[in-house]
């Protein structure tokens, strides 16, 4: 019985790692599509997003099965409940990655993106997602709290990008539409950073048993 429980828990862990990795792939691919204008990558993002949605349902099913059949307590219960919370954040990351890919189709010819700090922001957001998944894989509390702190950087970059875009629109209203698109992308990236923080918080909760906020 216990063995079965352990193997189910391990399966949950693996599925979560896979789902996290898919999120990393999705966001990396959508950012690459945005920056390099490689449109084949957007297809990859949509595929990854679909897979992420499927994984969310799979993991939900595993968690429910574990909760109903094994009635876990203490640490195991924490792991499962934090998994349930984590997957919704991961799913949101997947959605936002595919939203970015969607917008990318319209801004691919614009050279405005080289004028603003969108590249730094994307790199920061990817780093946050990667680190939050990494902190889950390694059960690393320090890395998790580093992710939470790193969010400030993404927020600052968002403000920075916003100011730059405002100035660009003022100077060149012709490209106003592109600027708005880029602003939305920046907002998505900022949201992705927030979701990465949520994941990191749930990682911390699953290890320590206390959740921030």
């Amino acid at each position: 019985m216990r063995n079965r429980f352990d193997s189910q828990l391990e399966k949950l862990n693996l599925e979560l790692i896979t789902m996290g990795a898919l999120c990393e792939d999705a966001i990396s691919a959508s950012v690459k599509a945005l920056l390099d204008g490689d449109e084949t990558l957007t297809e990859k993002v949509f595929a990854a997003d679909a897979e992420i949605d499927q994984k969310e349902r799979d993991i939900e099913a595993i968690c429910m099965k574990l909760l109903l059949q094994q009635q876990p307590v203490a640490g195991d219960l924490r792991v499962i409940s934090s998994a349930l919370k984590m997957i919704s954040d991961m799913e949101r990351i997947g959605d936002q990655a595919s939203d970015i890919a969607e917008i990318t189709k319209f801004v691919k010819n614009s050279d405005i993106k080289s004028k603003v700090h969108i590249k730094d922001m994307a790199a920061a957001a990817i780093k946050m997602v990667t680190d939050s998944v990494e902190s889950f894989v390694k059960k690393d509390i320090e890395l998790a709290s580093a992710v939470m702190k790193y969010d400030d950087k993404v927020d600052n970059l968002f403000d920075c990008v916003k100011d730059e875009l405002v100035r660009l629109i003022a100077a060149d209203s012709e490209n106003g539409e592109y600027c708005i698109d880029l602003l939305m992308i920046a907002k998505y990236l900022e949201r992705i950073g927030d979701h990465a923080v949520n994941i990191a918080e749930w990682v911390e909760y699953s290890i320590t048993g206390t959740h921030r906020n």
Partner: protein
Amino acid sequence: MTKKIFRGILFSSFITMLASMVFIIGVQYRIYDDSQRDSLESKARLISLAADAGEIERYAEAEERVTLIQSDGAVIYDNKSDAEKMENHAQREEVREAEKIGSGYAVRQSETLGINNRYYALKLENGNILRVSDTSLSVAAVILELLPPICAVAVFAFVLALILASLITKKILKPINEIDLDDLSGIKSYEELAPFISRIQAQQKSINRQISELTRSRREFEIIAENMSEGLVLTDINGHIITHNSSMEKFFGVSGDLNGKNILNINRSETFRGVFESIKENRRSDSVMETGGRYYEITVSPVSDESGNPRGAVILAVDITEKEKREKLRREFTANVSHELKTPLTSILGISDMLKNGMVASEDIKGFAEDINKETSRLISLVNDIIKLSELDEDKKRDTGRVNLYEVAQDVAERIEPVAEKQGISISVTGTDAVINAGDSLIFEMIYNLCDNAVKYNRENGSVTISTGVSDEGAFVSVKDTGIGIPAAEQERVFERFYRVDKGRSKQSGGTGLGLSIVKHIAVTFGGIIKISSEEGTGTEITVVFSEM
């Protein structure tokens, strides 16, 4: 064992004790029985004297029962009961015996429990039979009588046996308990245990040997795994890491104890997710992945035991960055070659088309012919360079001899002087003899290419200085010009095939873009190192140093 020995000793001592008690009681009873009989007999003889004298009445009050019986069995006298009422005694065992042989003895159980009646009959001189009888305790009664002391003794003996048995057991087992199983040499124990001890010793030896063999082969494996440049991971069928080497950690930037964890803990990229799938499905797979700017080829080979059951997988990660880069270079080269070959051919085709269709005025034909000539000679020099390069690429053994760089430099200077003079460029050769082991035609080619470039990319009335000599690092040849120079960012790239700093100018000067590639190849072939120092607008100095002389 302690319990069994203890119980054995206790049981046997108890049984022995019981047996000896029974025996002693038996013997005692016999003696008692005999003495009773003897005393009865002597009493009977005493009474018989009185009976003979007719004074039997004297025993009327005696303890014993005295009976006088006629030879026909009728009782004449009895001191305990009325003789008249007594039955005929002729058939009594002791009476019959006395009748026969003069005396008789019999023991009969009394009606009272535990009491025996003893009868002794004696034939008197007058033919009558005197029977004396008394009572004695039976065996059971004797035992019953003795029971309390026997019990006391038994309890005492039991306790004693208990203590002794425990002491003896300890003593017997002490040598066995004291055997140190880790160090059996020189052990002194029971003879009976000798075969076991020697057997254990032999087995210990063989176990130790096997352990050291296993340790050695494990060490061997570890050393091999640790020192291989490829990343290696062994996993079980569920993708749990059994062992991995440090190359793997280095490749994927992981550390810590990974054993027992899932393969996805090393890396969770798409490739590794595929690796995990193929481990579970027990099939072979090959994939290439990129991480941290390097390319790795990941091979998964399933492992099965003797009976063919899947047991896990071996994952090998090979760094193929160099290969991948070379592959990229080769692709670029092919693309470049095709492009470079196509350009002159296109203009030749265009010109010849025009000529064929008579679209060229006769006075212009000469000019077009010159164009064709120029393009063709460019093609030829390009093809020659490519041939040279591919010859150099073929890493075959070359004829080498002693080559003096100074002499070769002078030859080159002589050859190139006419071309240089046209642009007013002066060429000078300085330095001392520098003899190396190399092929002279290739060294000539190398210095010629360097000088050719120095002249081509020089300014009007510039100068080219070739110097040779022997420095601390080895023999060197350096070509210095006063030309346009190479920007610092591009100095690394000028040795790449078809790489040109200034695309327009080089076409015009008729270069193929392969000159410096050839220089580099030749230098490398003979163990030379190329150094480049250049400043834009001032000039370039390229030095080739041969450390092996």
